[in-house]
């Protein structure tokens, strides 16, 4: 592939990476243009891309939260302490 066409053509793994980054709004503008171009002729990536966006909206909709690290740390300690006491 000539350098010129490399400029526009990306392979599927690059397309996937760009697609993932854009789910987190971290894709560069020009990469997004190349992704769009890739999607016009790649059916597999089109399907991946639509599933990926759907996943993003599902995660947003679910409003899942993670519990704070301090709590996790405290629970770990509590469990450890209890296990030690049990053994003795």
């Amino acid at each position, binding site marked *: 592939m000539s350098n010129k066409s490399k400029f526009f053509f990306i392979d599927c793994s690059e397309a*996937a*990476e760009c697609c*993932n*980054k854009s*789910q*987190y709004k*971290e894709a560069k503008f020009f990469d997004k243009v190349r992704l769009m171009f890739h999607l016009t002729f790649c059916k597999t990536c089109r399907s*991946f891309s639509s*599933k*990926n966006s*759907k*996943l993003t909206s*599902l*995660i947003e*909709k*679910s*409003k*899942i*939260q*993670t*519990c704070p690290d301090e*709590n*996790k740390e*405290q*629970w*770990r300690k*509590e*469990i*450890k302490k*209890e*296990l030690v006491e*049990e053994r003795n």
Partner: protein
Amino acid sequence: MPANTLDPNKWVDRYSDYLFNYTIVRVNDREVANDLISETFLAALKSAKYFKGEASERTWLISILKRKIIDYYRKINSRKGQAEVKINYSDDYNEGEWLEEQVADQFDKTAEDEMENTELGLAILECLDSINEKHAEIFKRKTIDGADTEAICNEFNITPSNLWVIIHRARTALAACLEKNWF
């Protein structure tokens, strides 16, 4: 059939986010949720010897948590005393206004959606069980906590391209796992 076993040292890493999301929609208070989860872990340790291995660890922990949530509501209800019942439909001056009061609460319209979203959240966390624990942790940091790529790379000592490969695998696995019920 292989029986399920308990591994208390892994409980926090494996189930705390799941238990937290399960609890928070039921008690709507982070502090209370944290206390209930803490009590659940301790109660689970105490009754670990009765675990028969028929249910999964998660199901078993949830069954204990459920009881803790019910106990919590019993406690605050008895503290409150009897529920107050207010009837003002016989008010002569405002006759007819009760009709308006009878109109369904707007919240009801979305209650079902909310419930579905909670289930969706738990389904997502459950699907994350099928991938490598560390990768699931990284995925959650990035996707749920919205942490910076750089911060995560420092925390887990990986390169950005490692991170995107992990994210890619997690997202593909997650989409496949959710596909049947949610896509």
